[in-house]
């Protein structure tokens, strides 16, 4: 493999890794605050792409810069609605009940999507600025593969700033540690949890739209595989840790692309890579790469 070809795969892997990272953060943030695997997260991602699709269809291609933010705002509200309807009523129930509720929501959204959007795949409209091809010394880059990592990094910087430097971010970290002590500090715990779902959904929405621009095929079950893989990315990185989710996302994205690039005969096993990685990590370091050792202090 020439160096050019390697760079080609690298840019491809970086952009796929960015998408995984964005979606994985949603899993890890919700887990951090609720100790819940939000199985509906992949479906929220799917809803975002469909809403973006319909918004572009309605407003016209040249107004994509209005259509995409509409989809993001819709997904933000949708994520908060899911939390309010499916998880908040179970706040004092055993964790298994909430988990079952999450699986139920996931099935509901998927099947509702089949009814509402139709089961036949749709083609995502791509505004011209996202599929220009640049040629830089023998490496050809589609502009979307440049935009994805840049937008991802910008969002990550914003997120880290929000969580570490703002009052609400501080409250979020406090709530993830201790609900009752947070309430005693006059923090509205329900509001903070709802906001966490909102933020996770926004990241999934941005990821979903960029996913549509990169792989322009929409179908109601499109959230399933990315959802599972990003959950794996979050676990590989150490669930509950945002840096871990980002790391896991990039390992998964780069790994997948490089596997196909270096060993073309394994192309058919592309999706299996994530699951093999999961098994290996769970055997070697069950708390994930960034995960701390679990010690219960009494």
């Amino acid at each position: 493999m020439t160096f050019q070809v390697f760079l080609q795969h690298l840019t491809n892997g970086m952009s796929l890794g960015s998408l995984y990272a964005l979606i994985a953060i949603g899993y890890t943030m919700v887990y951090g605050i609720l100790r819940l695997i939000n199985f509906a997260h992949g479906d929220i991602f799917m809803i975002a792409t469909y809403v973006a699709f319909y918004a572009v269809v309605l407003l016209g291609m040249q107004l994509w810069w209005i259509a995409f933010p509409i989809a993001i705002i819709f997904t933000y509200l949708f994520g908060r609605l899911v939390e309010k309807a499916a998880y908040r009523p179970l706040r004092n129930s055993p964790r298994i009940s909430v988990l079952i509720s999450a699986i139920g929501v996931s099935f509901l959204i998927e099947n509702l999507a089949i009814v509402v959007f139709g089961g036949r795949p749709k083609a995502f409209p791509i505004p011209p600025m996202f599929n220009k091809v640049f040629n830089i010394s023998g490496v050809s880059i589609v502009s979307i593969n440049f935009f994805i990592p840049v937008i991802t990094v910008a969002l990550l910087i914003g997120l880290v700033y929000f969580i570490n430097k703002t009052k609400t971010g501080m409250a979020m970290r406090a709530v993830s540690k201790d609900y009752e002590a947070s309430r005693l500090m006059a923090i509205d715990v329900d509001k903070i949890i709802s906001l966490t779902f909102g933020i996770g959904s926004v990241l999934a929405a941005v990821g979903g739209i960029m996913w549509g621009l990169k792989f322009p095929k929409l179908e109601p079950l499109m959230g399933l595989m990315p959802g599972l893989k990003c959950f794996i990315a979050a676990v590989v990185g150490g669930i509950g840790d945002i840096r871990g989710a980002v790391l896991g996302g990039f390992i998964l994205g780069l790994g997948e692309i490089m596997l196909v690039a270096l060993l073309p005969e394994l192309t058919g096993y592309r999706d299996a890579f994530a699951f093999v990685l999961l098994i290996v990590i769970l055997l070697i370091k069950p708390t994930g790469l960034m995960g701390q050792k679990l010690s219960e202090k009494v």
Partner: protein
Amino acid sequence: MLHINNLNVHYGGIHALRGINIDIPENKIITLIGANGAGKSTTLRSIMGITKPSQGSIQYHGEELTKYKTKDIVEKGIVLVPEGRRVFSNLTVEENLLLGAYCRSDKEGIKKDMEWVYELFPRLKERLWQKAGTMSGGEQQMLAVGRGLMTKPKLLMMDEPSLGLAPLLVKEIFNIVREIHRQGMTILLIEQNAKASLEVADYGYVLETGTIVLEGPGQELLKNDEVKNAYLGEAK
């Protein structure tokens, strides 16, 4: 300031508080002593609105508290320093204190109160950037009290502040309680360490299985034979 009237609390089938009456006048230190499971923490949790009473009233400046959420009660000026400290171990000392001021927006006042907390607990100032979870039990207790004071309370309630601390630190904590009281704070103190708390208290209540069996000025309770026998470990 705060009147508890015929307070009853049930946990499922357990009758945890059986109609207690407590009166907390302004600028006094009131203490509630009793064994494990007597209902001390339940009393505090009811005042904070965490536990909903089945009967009775809690009046704060003439206003019924039981209908409010915890958040609103904190904003009214009542704060609980919870049992077992419950500091946010993943946050720095400074962030813990700032979270105490979560319900406030008076930047100047927050800054002034931070200085005040540092004055009371110079050791916290040395550890500003340290994660709260890495500190010793005594330091965490100081942080928990400091965090409580940052809410700018009028009534400070402490649940077993001396629990699990070395005798020297217990003394230090009680000195701080005295100092905060001297500056005009009303305090409700809950303790198993009956001697130390009765010594600082203006008035004390003895709680046994959900009922108040004795009450009186702190010094008087210290001399009471029953109290001596049951809580101070002195034979008759």
